Each structure stands twice: as C-alpha cells, then as structure tokens.
C-alpha cells in the first residue's frame, strides 16, 4: 500500500523512516499543560510521560476531563494561545515542544496525524471528500490535483469505503457518521504517518460501526506499522485494541501496564475502581455496580499529594502530604503509596 513502509506480517518490526528498531517513535516527557484565565489557572495535564513504538497501540484511558484530549492536542501543537505547555515531545528524534507553527505544520498530517471524536463536524461541509483528502497529499507529497484524486480513491478503498470512485466526489453530508470517520482516517493516514493519535474515534458512533472503525485502525497498524495512540474512556475498546494502557486521573498518569496485565492485575485503586464499574456478561443482574465514591478534584491546584486520596479506601496520612511518583519502568508502573499487590485476586475479563 505504502511506498515508505513495506508490507509486513509482523507489525512490531515495521519501522517508520525515522525510527531505529526498539526505540519509541513518539516520546512524551514531563508534559504539563495549564490554561490561564483572568481569575485562575487550571492545570489540565501534570507531568505526563509516555512513549509509543512503531506498530504499537497505546491506549490512554480516564474519565471525561482527566486531560486525555488536552494531552493529544498539546502533542499536535493545536492548543489555543491561552494554554501553557511545558515538557518535551519528541517525534523520531525531533523535538516538537516549542517548535514554530511553520515547523509544526510541516510535521502535522505527514509524520504525526490525528483523528477526532466528532466525525459529523470534523469535515468541511462545502468541500468534496476527494478535495479534503487530496489537500493533505498535495501539501506534503507535492502531488498534482489529478494524482491526489487518484490516491484519494485508493485511500478510501483502504479504509473500507464501498464505491470509492463515486464517494470521492461526494460531500460530507452525503455520508453517514461511520463513513465520515473512515474519511477522517483516510485523511490521517494519507501520508503514512509514523504516529496516529485517535481521540475517542468511536465514541460518537453506533456499536456496530465502532467495531468496523477499530478494525480499520488495527489493519492500518498491521499493514503500515503505524504507532497508534488511542484515547478512550471505553474499556471495551481498550480490551479490543490496545497493547499497552496508560490510565490517567485528574491530569496525572496513575498506572501504566501491558493491556492484558492491567485487566488481570490492576494495581492502582482507581484502576481497580474503573474496572469493577464495568458490566460483565454473566454478572448477577440485581446487584448494583460498584462505584468510586466522591468527585474528581478541581484542577486548579497541583497538590503535593495523591489526587485520588480523597476517594480512595486505602488512603492514609502520607497520601495527603506527598505525591506518589510512578514506579520505575518494569513494564507495569503505578503511582500509588499503597498499590494493590500484584498477586491480589483480579478481574479476569474486563469487557467482552
């Protein structure tokens, strides 16, 4: 399919042009984002670090407002001027934090692409599908109008849109939500990006359509070796698609682990709470699902404490006075003073 990446049966071995084997293509270090307003400052993301390798799917999970989307917008450099971003974002050895708008626009859509949560409004209503896909090809690959259109038809076929020759001349309002999200994916992968950030790509869609979109993402990672950062609050989607999972709570990373390990042996009390709040087949119908008591704390302060302490049943004095750091990288990392023992009885199957 692609000229840059050979087809391969082993996605983990597929290497984007800029990556050395084994090293991450996208590496985020100590990323903090705050928003200033006249009256207060909101710390949306607090010292977040993650990396993702070629052909890997990293899921970032957490509830609404925990900073998942802000993180990805910060990585793309798409935040409004009211945001202050600190830390480092390295894409294949290139530093993106602090880069100029011009430097960023040369990377966006080419090496680093993103698909958004709202397929109904993310496409321009007055331009044809073909034009909107072609635009990114003409910008980054210097294709002619005609070449771009031919390639757009190929891309539509790649993301599973039937009759692409006809669809390419249509407008967004003539397509369903699922089809529009496929078009968004076609735009995102047009230039074979090394990293694709998918921000809740299936949230606005029907469950059956969701499965189709996830399938497209999976096949792209297999065929093109794209590294995918999948942002979601749907643990079913995580179980389906992710290799590794990063759990966020109130702007901080609280746990990071391989997907199967996170589901079988969650160590952070918040993660355990999240998982036990998921409905499982065969579960007693009459029992009320366990919930996490309390509310997400305000993001106005960056307390030197565990932000989950107020809602945590394990919390003691230390949780309220010292911030727990993520444990050293051993595959399964957790930011908690009282992590659940790795051998503790676990939830076998989180979803599906």
């Amino acid at each position, binding site marked *: 399919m692609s000229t840059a990446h050979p087809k391969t049966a082993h996605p983990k071995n597929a290497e984007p042009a800029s990556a050395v084997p084994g090293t991450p293509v996208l590496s985020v270090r100590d990323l903090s984002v705050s928003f200033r307003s006249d009256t207060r400052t909101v710390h949306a993301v607090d010292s977040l670090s993650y990396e993702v390798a070629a052909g890997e799917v990293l899921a970032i999970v957490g509830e609404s407002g925990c900073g998942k989307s802000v993180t990805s917008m910060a990585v*793309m450099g798409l935040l409004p001027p009211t945001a202050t971003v600190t830390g480092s974002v390295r894409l294949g050895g290139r530093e993106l934090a602090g880069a100029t708008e011009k430097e960023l626009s*040369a*990377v966006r859509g080419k090496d680093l692409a993103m698909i958004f949560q709202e397929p109904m409004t*993310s496409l*321009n209503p*007055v331009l044809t599908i073909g034009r909107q896909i072609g635009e990114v090809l003409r*910008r*980054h690959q210097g294709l002619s109008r005609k070449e771009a259109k031919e390639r757009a038809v190929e891309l539509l076929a790649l993301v599973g849109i039937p009759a692409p020759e006809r669809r390419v001349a249509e*407008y967004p*309002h003539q397509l369903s939500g699922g089809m529009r999200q496929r078009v968004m994916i076609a735009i995102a992968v047009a230039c074979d990006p090394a990293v694709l950030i998918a921000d809740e790509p299936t949230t606005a869609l029907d469950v059956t359509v969701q499965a189709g979109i996830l399938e497209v993402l999976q096949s792209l990672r297999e065929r093109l070796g794209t590294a995918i950062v999948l942002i979601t609050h749907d643990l079913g989607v995580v179980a389906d698609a992710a290799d590794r999972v990063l759990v966020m709570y109130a702007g901080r990373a609280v746990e990071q682990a391989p997907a199967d390990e996170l589901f079988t042996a969650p160590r952070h009390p918040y993660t355990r709470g999240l998982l036990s709040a998921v409905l499982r087949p065969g579960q007693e119908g009459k029992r009320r699902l366990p919930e996490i008591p309390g509310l997400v704390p305000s993001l106005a302060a960056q307390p030197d404490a565990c932000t989950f302490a107020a809602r945590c049943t394990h919390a003691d004095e230390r949780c309220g006075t010292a911030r727990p750091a993520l444990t050293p990288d051993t595959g399964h990392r957790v930011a908690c003073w009282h992590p659940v023992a790795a051998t503790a009885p676990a939830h076998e199957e989180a979803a599906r």
Partner: protein
Amino acid sequence: MNRYLLTRLRQSLITLFLVSVVVFAGIRALPGDPALALAGEERSPQALAAIREAYGLNDNIVVQYGRFVGHALTGDLGTSARTGLPVLDSILDALPVTLELAALSLLLAVVLGIGAGVLAAVRRGKATEWLANAIALLGLSVPTFWLGIVLVLAFAIAVPIFAASGYVPFGTDPLDNLRRMVLPAIVLGSGLAAVVMRQTRGAMLDNLSADYVRTARAKGLSRRQVVGGHALRNSLVTVVTVLGLQLGHLISGAVVTEQIFVLPGFGKLTIDAVFTRDYTMLQGVVLCTSAAYILVNLAVDVLYSVIDPRIRLGGAR
C-alpha cells in the same frame, strides 16, 4: 438545472406577476382621470369619450391589465406624458449609469468588507480588529448625504483628483468616467462595506473555531489555506445572504447618491417622475426596479447553491 433552481425560478415568476399587478393597480388607484390629462384644453364630453375609446379605458380592468402585460413583454412601457419619449428609451439611457454605480459600489463593498472582516477575525483582540471595527461603525453611522458632501469638498474641490458631478459614458472616455464615478461609488458602497465587514467577521469567528478548521490545521495546512480555503469558503454563505438583502438598500441609496452627484441614472429618473407626476414613467421605473430586485435575489440563490453543496444537493444535516 436541478429541482432547487427550478423551484426558485417558479417563485421568481410568481413574484414578478404579483409586482405587475400591484404596479398596474397602483396607477389605477391614483386620483385623477387619465383622459382629462390627455385631453388638454379640449374637454368636451365627446372628446373625452373618444380618448377613452382610443386608449381602451372603457374596457374591463382585466382586459386592460392583459394589454399592459402584453405591451410590457414586447418592451412597450408606454410614452412619457412629460417628455413625449418612449419610457423604455429613457430607462435604457439611465440604466447603464445606475448599473455602473451599483457594480462599483458592490465591488468596493465586497473587496473592502470581506478583506477587513477576515482581517478582524484573524487578528482578534489585536489593534487591527479594533481599527476595523471602528471604521465599520463609522461607515454604518455616517449618513450618505453628509459623506457625499464631505468627499466632494475634500477630493473634488480642495484636492481636485475626482469630479463632483456629471456623467461621461465609459465607452466615450474610460478615465473621465471613473474620475466621476469613484466618489459616488464610495458614498454608496461605504455603508454596504461596513455591513459586509461585520457579517464576515462574525461568520469567520464562528468558522475559525469549527471542528473542521481544527482538522485542516491537523493536516498541516498553512494558515492561509486554513483561513482562505476552509473558514472563508464557509463564511461566504452568510456574506452572500447579507449582500442579497442589502441590494435593496443599494437601489434606494442610488436615488440619493445620484441626486448628490447629478448622475442621470435610475434614481434621478425616479425622482423626476415622482415630482412631475409622470405616471407612465413611474410605472415603468417601478416595474424595472422590482424586476431587477427579483433577478438579483434569484442570482443570490444560485450563488448559494454554488457555494454550499448542501443546498445544491438538497441534503440535510
């Protein structure tokens, strides 16, 4: 030609029919007997009867209307009682003047209005936006006649770059023509430019924060492509709507402007016809103005469908 355009065409024809009825009935409703006016000195009942017979004034009103429409369709709008010339000839003489004035004003309004509106939206919160807003407010607040007089004093008398009055056809001397048309076009176009600027700015602010603009930025498009190719393209629907609505003001504004700059256009023809009670002329002028207005609105609707595929293709969402 699709269903949307056919529907609009049908609506336009119905409107035109209604206008012709109103114009026809309006003239009949005016006080005074046309036979008396035509008879002049000789007012014997026989002479009046002969005139009524000759002009078909005794016929059924519907028959008279049919005759009026029939004549109008063949280009015969009657003869002016004042000048004795065919009304159509006077209209055709005045039309190019007003059309040129309107076209220049429109050009000015579109170029200045859209340009300033986009600039104000893109440079939001900066001095540029403040300046553009202030000028737009000024353009809206200043009365046409006052602006006309000030411009004449400044650029035709104090610094005589432009001429203050009179008309020279473009075909005769293009330069002299423009020298005389620039000031009237500024006077007529400034208000429209201000309206267009404000609408463009509003639409651009909406569109620049739209999701698809975020997508365009995520594609790595340049700022110019994002603003011009995506946000402006969507804002044009709003701008064209406003232009269509404002063209009526352009027509009435032309009446005042032509009076100030002594231009022999449609506005002057209308005012002269009103003051001399030249009913035939008035009837022709009103009919032509209404037809022009309907045509312009039809053109605006066609433009819509060109800009927005959702209208052209009759889609929802």
